[in-house]
């Protein structure tokens, strides 16, 4: 209450200042009058009494000031005065103010933008209950269906094992599982759903989750209910689906009565049981967020493949995560116990899968098997693993830029404080306190910093939007937002204030240290210019720091730009200019494996007939791709060492694949349209396989067997193709590739395979299935079109040709090979272009700073220079005198910068390609650049110094 009253009366005092002053006058007048009367009463004469009373009172203004100063509002008022004064000072030098605010805005904006992304990608907790209790088993980053691996390698687990742990979670609160990737499914809204029967299918990512997934992750649905263990009880049952908020909004127009309705996923009806809240995207945060969740028991429908849900053995396709007991989340010993329990389960599981007897060496290997518990408080994110390091580096880069901007402003303000010494000395002489002067200086810098911060928020918003577009790589919807939230706003405010203090404190202290006596004397300017070393220490240090930081940034930018160029200029092994790629899925359009040969033939005929098309082909995956089909292989005439890596990437291709992708055949022949279902099964391998397994060059004619039952072979090797960058651009070792003809893949999955094959890839097929199962591996996923001109111009024609073949056949991800390759360099492009932009900015800021400091020095020393010239100094030596100073700073800056660069280089080495962080060429270029800029910035004022007219200079004061 008293605080409130004090506040109110303070406000009143502020607004009725006139009235208050008047009242005070009257009261003091009355006081004086009364005092006089009293003195007369005591026997003084009128005049004496009046004089005595006046003396007693002293200055009425002083009394009034004291009364006013007793309330808080006077402090507020004087701060307000300082603010207005600062605004006037800023308005008086609009050039300086504009440069200051702009450079701060760029610095703070850059920091805010990168922080917004870091916050979203690296720091934000999952929107679930107690996220810090969540752990994944292994890093859970990859995805796919594996065979022939140990439990938990690549953090992949088979279904039976997941079930086992779900039923007996040991020291955990619970263990849940989910499909390691989210395949795209075709969704049709049931005609009952809407009045306008919307029959076009849409394709969204769907994830399979265990019945306890939602309860373990700790997320409540917004509407309806989540999936429960009852839904996930028996394979083939449980056709229920939980929707994401985004899907519910976009596709179902946020229909409040959606629960209980039916939607069709991959031609199977599913009952909608729940809608998740907006922020929830599951534990795995993919670039394209999961839109639907269904029970794992619906795997065959969602994945459109053979059942992977086998009671023993089976393929490895699930990721596991668990919720720790509260004590294990905080206590290391309890966590270690949970880890030990898990490793025990893993080892027991591996032993059970092993044929007996187990060799002692293998036994030891099993005893070392471990699956680390990884904290999943922020979820599992491919964006994080892909961009995390880049974002950290960029955060350091923008931090350096902000430091340079700070150094610049500190320098300007120091110079200004020096030129304002007279003003400050006058104020001190008139009775202003030093605290008040420091406060005023700080208010000025904080005003600059906060205006810069405000403008920076705008810049950050625009930058973040652009960066998110970059991240999304053409995906229409990703779970990132450029709107700053409270954390980001707080961050910006903190950075602005810290910046203000950083560049404002030194000038403010210097200003307050001004001695009033010397400064006001007439020869102050001379005293200043000769007051030498200490007064010029700070500006010099700051310029040196700027040179060092700029050098650091320039080297960084150079390294990243050259990395990008190295990535772009390497030998890819395939056509990189005239190739158009498109994904399609005939399975989702309702085709059976038996119908594929006819479809593919028509499709290729239609596409090949298009104008400007050189040739067309189909394959499982593009020549360069993130996802791959791989397996271990066996080669006749080669006996692998125990545990030797026999894996190879596989691709199934149509007749003109090598011609279309322009992959040269080194030896033998390529796969041609003549390799049909009725002819001998053939395969083409690449140099990597041929050179590794048959170094004598006798690979042709050998038989190759693939450890996947559907495409087992044997295949006769008829050709050797050139190595290609099939899996990425940074691989040091060439990727092993095996190509087989799409047309020669058997129509039916082999009826039964004994489960005695232990360490080989396991087929997912049911061993005792009576009717023959059609082979899903007959489907191709990619159309390749080689054009004579710009491939982008063929996109419309390609769509038309596919639609003419079958209007239900949807094309997604149409991309030129150029774009496809670019997706492997987004990280490098992002980091190199941003570092380049920021280092350019830093260079400009640093040169402005150097120029400013040197100009100021020359102006300050005009007098001295005039005397030197008058005494017969040569112009050359004057020029050298000024230049010498900057060169000295440059040399020191570089001398500090080189070791700093080498140290920083070690941190970014992993991000580089084709060069070392100590690359001399880059470092020399950077040094030359910074030297050139420094020399230009220093030469201009030095040149001006030689133009000093000694007569004018000596009369200057």
């Amino acid at each position, binding site marked *: 209450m008293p605080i409130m009253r004090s506040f109110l009366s303070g406000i009143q005092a502020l607004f009725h200042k006139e009235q208050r002053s008047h009242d005070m006058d009257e009261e003091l007048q009355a006081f004086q009058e009364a005092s006089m009367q009293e003195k007369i009463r005591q026997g003084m004469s009128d005049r004496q009494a009046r004089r005595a009373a006046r003396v*007693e009172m002293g200055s009425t203004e002083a009394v009034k000031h004291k009364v006013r100063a007793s309330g808080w509002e006077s402090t507020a008022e004087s701060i307000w005065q300082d603010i207005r004064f600062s605004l006037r000072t800023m308005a008086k030098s609009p050039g300086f103010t504009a440069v200051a605010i702009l450079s701060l805005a760029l610095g703070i904006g850059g920091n805010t933008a990168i922080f917004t992304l870091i916050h979203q990608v690296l720091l934000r907790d999952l929107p679930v209950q107690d996220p810090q209790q969540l752990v994944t088993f292994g890093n859970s980053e990859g995805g796919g269906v594996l065979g022939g691996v140990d439990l938990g390698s690549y953090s992949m687990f088979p279904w039976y094992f997941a079930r086992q742990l779900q039923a007996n979670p040991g020291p955990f609160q619970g263990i849940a599982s989910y499909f390691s990737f989210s395949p795209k499914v075709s969704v049709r809204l049931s005609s009952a759903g809407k009045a306008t029967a919307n029959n076009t299918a849409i394709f969204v990512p769907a994830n399979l989750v265990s019945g306890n997934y939602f309860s373990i992750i700790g997320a409540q649905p917004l509407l309806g209910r989540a999936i429960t263990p009852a839904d996930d009880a028996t394979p083939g049952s449980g056709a229920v689906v939980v929707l994401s908020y985004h899907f519910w909004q976009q596709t179902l127009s946020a229909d409040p009565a959606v629960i209980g309705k039916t939607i069709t996923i991959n031609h199977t009806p599913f009952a909608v049981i729940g809608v998740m809240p907006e922020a929830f995207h599951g534990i795995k945060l993919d670039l394209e967020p999961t839109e639907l969740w269904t029970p794992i028991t619906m795997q065959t429908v969602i994945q459109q493949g053979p059942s992977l849900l086998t009671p023993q053995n089976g393929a490895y396709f699930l990721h596991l995560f668990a919720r720790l007991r509260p004590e294990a989340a905080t206590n290391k010993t309890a966590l270690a116990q949970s880890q030990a329990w898990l490793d025990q389960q893993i080892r027991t599981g591996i032993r059970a899968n092993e044929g007996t007897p187990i060799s002692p060496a293998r036994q030891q290997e099993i005893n070392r098997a471990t699956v680390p518990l990884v904290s999943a408080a922020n979820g599992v994110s491919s964006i994080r693993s892909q961009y995390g390091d880049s974002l950290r580096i960029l955060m350091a880069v923008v931090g350096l830029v902000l430091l340079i901007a700070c150094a610049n402003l500190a320098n300007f303000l120091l110079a200004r404080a020096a030129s304002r010494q007279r003003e400050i000395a006058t104020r001190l002489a008139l009775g202003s306190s030093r605290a008040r002067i420091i406060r005023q200086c700080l208010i000025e810098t904080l005003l600059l910093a906060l205006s810069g911060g405000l403008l920076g928020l705008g810049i950050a918003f625009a930058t973040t939007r652009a960066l998110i577009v970059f991240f999304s790589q053409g995906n229409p919807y990703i779970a990132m937002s450029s709107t700053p939230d409270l954390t980001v706003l707080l961050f910006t405010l903190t950075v602005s204030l810290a910046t203000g203090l950083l560049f404002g404190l030194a000038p403010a202290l210097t200003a307050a240290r001004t001695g009033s006596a010397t400064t006001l004397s007439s020869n102050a300017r001379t005293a200043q210019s000769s007051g030498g070393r200490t007064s010029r220490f700070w500006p010099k240090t700051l310029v040196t720091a700027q040179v060092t930081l700029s050098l650091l940034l320039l080297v960084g930018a150079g390294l990243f730009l050259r990395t990008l160029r190295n990535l772009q200029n390497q030998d890819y092994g395939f056509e990189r200019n005239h190739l158009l790629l498109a994904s399609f899925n005939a399975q989702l359009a309702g085709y059976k494996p038996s119908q594929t040969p006819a479809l593919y033939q028509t499709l290729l005929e239609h596409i090949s007939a298009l104008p400007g098309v050189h040739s067309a082909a189909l394959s499982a995956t593009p020549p360069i791709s993130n996802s791959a089909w791989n397996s271990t292989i066996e080669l006749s005439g080669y006996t692998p060492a125990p545990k030797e890596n026999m894996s190879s990437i596989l691709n199934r291709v149509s007749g003109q694949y090598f011609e279309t992708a322009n992959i040269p055949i080194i030896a033998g022949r390529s796969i041609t349209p003549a390799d049909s279902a009725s002819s001998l099964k053939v395969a083409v391998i690449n140099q990597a396989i041929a050179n590794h397994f048959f170094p004598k060059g006798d690979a042709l004619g050998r038989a190759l067997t693939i450890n996947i039952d559907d495409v087992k072979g044997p295949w006769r090797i008829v050709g050797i193709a050139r190595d290609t960058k099939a899996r990425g651009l940074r691989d040091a070792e060439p990727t092993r590739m095996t190509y087989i003809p799409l047309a020669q893949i058997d129509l039916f999955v082999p009826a039964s395979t004994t489960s005695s094959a232990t360490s080989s890839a396991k087929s997912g097929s049911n061993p005792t299935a009576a009717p023959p199962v059609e082979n899903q591996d007959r489907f191709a996923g990619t159309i390749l079109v080689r054009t004579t001109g710009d491939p982008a111009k063929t996109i419309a024609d390609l769509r038309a040709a596919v639609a003419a073949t079958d209007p239900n056949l949807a094309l997604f991800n149409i991309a030129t090979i150029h774009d496809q390759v670019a997706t492997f360099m987004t990280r490098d492009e992002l980091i190199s272009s941003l570092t380049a932009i920021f280092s350019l900015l830093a260079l400009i800021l640093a040169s402005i700073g150097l120029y400013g400091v040197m100009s100021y020095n020359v102006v300050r020393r005009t007098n001295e220079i005039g005397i030197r010239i008058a005494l017969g100094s040569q112009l050359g030596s004057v020029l050298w005198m000024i230049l010498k100073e900057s060169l000295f700073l440059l040399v020191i800056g570089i001398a500090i910068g080189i070791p700093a660069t080498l140290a920083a280089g070690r941190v970014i080495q992993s991000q580089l390609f084709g060069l070392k962080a100590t690359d001399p060429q880059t470092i020399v270029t950077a040094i030359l650049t910074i030297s050139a800029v420094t020399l230009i910035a220093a030469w201009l004022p030095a040149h001006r110094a030689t133009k000093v007219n000694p007569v004018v200079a000596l009369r200057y004061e």
Partner: protein
Amino acid sequence: MTGKSSDLIQGTLDMLILKTLALEPMHGYGVALRIEQISNGVFRVNPGSLFPALSRLERASRIKAEWRATENNRRAKYYLLTEQGRKALKEETLQWSRQLAAITSILEA
């Protein structure tokens, strides 16, 4: 003329003003005069200390002010003790006498 108002122990001025006003409402000079008279001229309160103190006490709602006519028909600002002020005076007096007793016993020890 030896004891000056500057010798007033920090914080006691407020208490003295409250005590003065507890007897009857008074204007500023009246307060100063009364303190001086009662202390036999030991404490002289000058306007530079008196008015800020009055303003502070008014802010804290321990006293309130109103314009009244003086005995010789001039307008003056009279200060009145509020209920809160009365309580504060009681407390401060109590505390003061406790401190005084303590100090005295130390000095006489």
